[in-house]
């Protein structure tokens, strides 16, 4: 094996093992930031030794042992200042003792696991959203600062600073390395799901940037979601989110042309959708529904995505089911954007006039006045009703509202096509 091969192996081992190892060390040290630092140091040792001595048989265990030794050194230093630590050191040397009272409590937890604690800690509400995302990718994805900066198109120094500040904040606020319980669980879980979905969307909706890095973010988010679904198996919305991501990810490779121009859902080559991911999405959706979560925010979005996935041709789409799912979604999370989507579904199910009535209502309401899709949808419905002059005005208006050049060009073309 050449030195380059060894470095590649080390990198690969790191991606596979880092989350588990950080989580285990964090439980022992009660400090996530320090756990990550120590493991990084162990990585440096590996980078120095493995090219010389060869990759060990069990690389994960090697990294763990090395990091643990350093943890013990650190604790000895701590101990000189603080005499209350002998138990912790014993634990590090000999493995866990009989569960301490707080740990015994954790054993009752349905979802008491190191990785789960790590996810909840990385997404702790004490941290800003940017920090949560960076820390999650770093500690649960094993991504380097450079990879995160490439994926989010921000300078590497910014990401590094976010991570440093996040770790400091966790230490300062003495955030416990634990899974929230009781009534704390729901809002904390919601925050974790938001972080994961944000990572997914960052990879999914971006049309600019590095081709390589962005779909990777989708896969990373999907992986995190699947992990969470294993660990928090009783939480319906986790399965709802996984279902949504699996089904959306099934279209990842049919959403754009070779030159990067996006292809709209109804124009995609459906034979290129990944059927295995769709099946996984369906299964996750069924799990969410069986757990009583059919009306969860993510589960409903997943159910809508599933309607599209079921239609082998765009013409086969069950628009009336989609329209009623949007109505349920609007009841759970009322939003003018959901209403707009519902209007589109209704127009597809029962004709443009019904959709237009709903869109006009949204125009009167006013929240979406600056949203180009409202004008664009209204233009489309007017066009279908043969009211071409009005349609043209709407498309022209929509073109002035979007910041995206490609979209603006498309809207002006549609406006021009309205000429009698």
């Amino acid at each position: 094996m050449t030195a380059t091969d060894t470095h590649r192996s080390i990198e690969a081992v790191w991606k596979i093992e880092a989350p588990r190892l950080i989580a285990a060390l964090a439980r022992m040290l009660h400090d996530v930031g320090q756990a990550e630092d120590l493991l990084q140091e162990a990585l440096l040792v590996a980078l120095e030794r493995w090219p010389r001595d060869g990759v060990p048989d069990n690389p994960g265990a090697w990294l763990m042992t090395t990091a643990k030794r350093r943890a013990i050194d650190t604790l000895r230093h701590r101990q000189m200042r603080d005499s209350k630590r002998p138990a912790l050191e014993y634990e590090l040397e000999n493995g866990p003792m009989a569960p301490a009272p707080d740990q015994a409590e954790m054993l009752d937890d349905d979802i008491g696991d190191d990785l789960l604690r790590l996810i909840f800690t990385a997404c702790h509400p004490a941290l800003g959203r940017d920090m949560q995302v960076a820390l999650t990718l770093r500690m649960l994805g094993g991504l380097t600062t450079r990879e995160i900066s490439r994926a989010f198109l921000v300078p590497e120094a910014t990401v590094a600073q976010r991570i440093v500040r996040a770790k400091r904040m966790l230490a300062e606020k003495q955030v416990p390395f634990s899974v929230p319980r009781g009534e704390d669980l729901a809002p904390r879980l919601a925050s974790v799901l938001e972080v994961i979905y944000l990572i997914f969307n960052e990879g999914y909706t971006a049309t600019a940037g590095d081709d390589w890095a962005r779909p990777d973010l989708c896969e990373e988010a999907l992986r995190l979601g699947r992990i969470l679904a294993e660990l928090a198996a009783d939480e319906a919305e986790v399965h709802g989110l996984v279902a949504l991501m699996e089904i959306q990810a099934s279209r990842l490779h049919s959403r754009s042309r070779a030159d990067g121009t996006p292809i709209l859902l109804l124009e995609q080559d459906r034979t290129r959708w990944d059927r295995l991911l769709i099946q996984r999405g369906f299964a996750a959706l069924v799990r969410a529904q069986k757990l009583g979560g059919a009306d969860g925010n993510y589960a409903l979005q997943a159910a809508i995505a599933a309607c599209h996935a079921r239609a082998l041709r765009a013409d086969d789409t069950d628009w009336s089911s989609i329209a009623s799912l949007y109505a349920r979604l609007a009841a759970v999370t009322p939003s003018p954007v959901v209403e707009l989507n519902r209007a589109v579904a209704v127009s597809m199910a029962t004709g443009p006039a019904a959709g237009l009535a709903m869109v006009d209502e949204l125009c009167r309401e006013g929240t979406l006045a600056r949203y180009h899709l409202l004008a664009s949808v209204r233009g489309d419905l007017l066009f279908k009703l043969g009211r071409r002059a009005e349609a043209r005005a709407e498309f022209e208006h929509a073109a002035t509202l979007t910041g995206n050049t490609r979209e603006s060009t498309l809207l002006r073309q549609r406006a021009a096509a309205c000429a009698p």
Partner: protein
Amino acid sequence: MSYLLLVLEPQGQRAERNTTEARDAYASMQAYADGLQARGILRAYSSLRNDAEGQRLQIRGGKRTVHDGPFTEAGEMIGGFFLVDCATREQALELAAMCPAAQWATLEVRETGPCHLG
């Protein structure tokens, strides 16, 4: 990116194991699959029944021929598979190295992708 890890077992190896050994091997593979699952990277997996129970089918000039297994000419049989998601070939290789079957069989690591590219 998805990779298929194929387990290629020496022909006849299963018959050499006693019941306990066979169960232990199966349990260790199940634990491996659980580990992949817990990492969120396992798409699909299964062990396969002996190739003595398998068939090979061809249609040539409209004529169908079916051959019953075992397919001894290869000297090995496909004993199972894991379809995993990971970013690089190196990660796929490390995952293969973690597989208990790497100790008694051969792991073939194949990237999924269009076959018309050669």
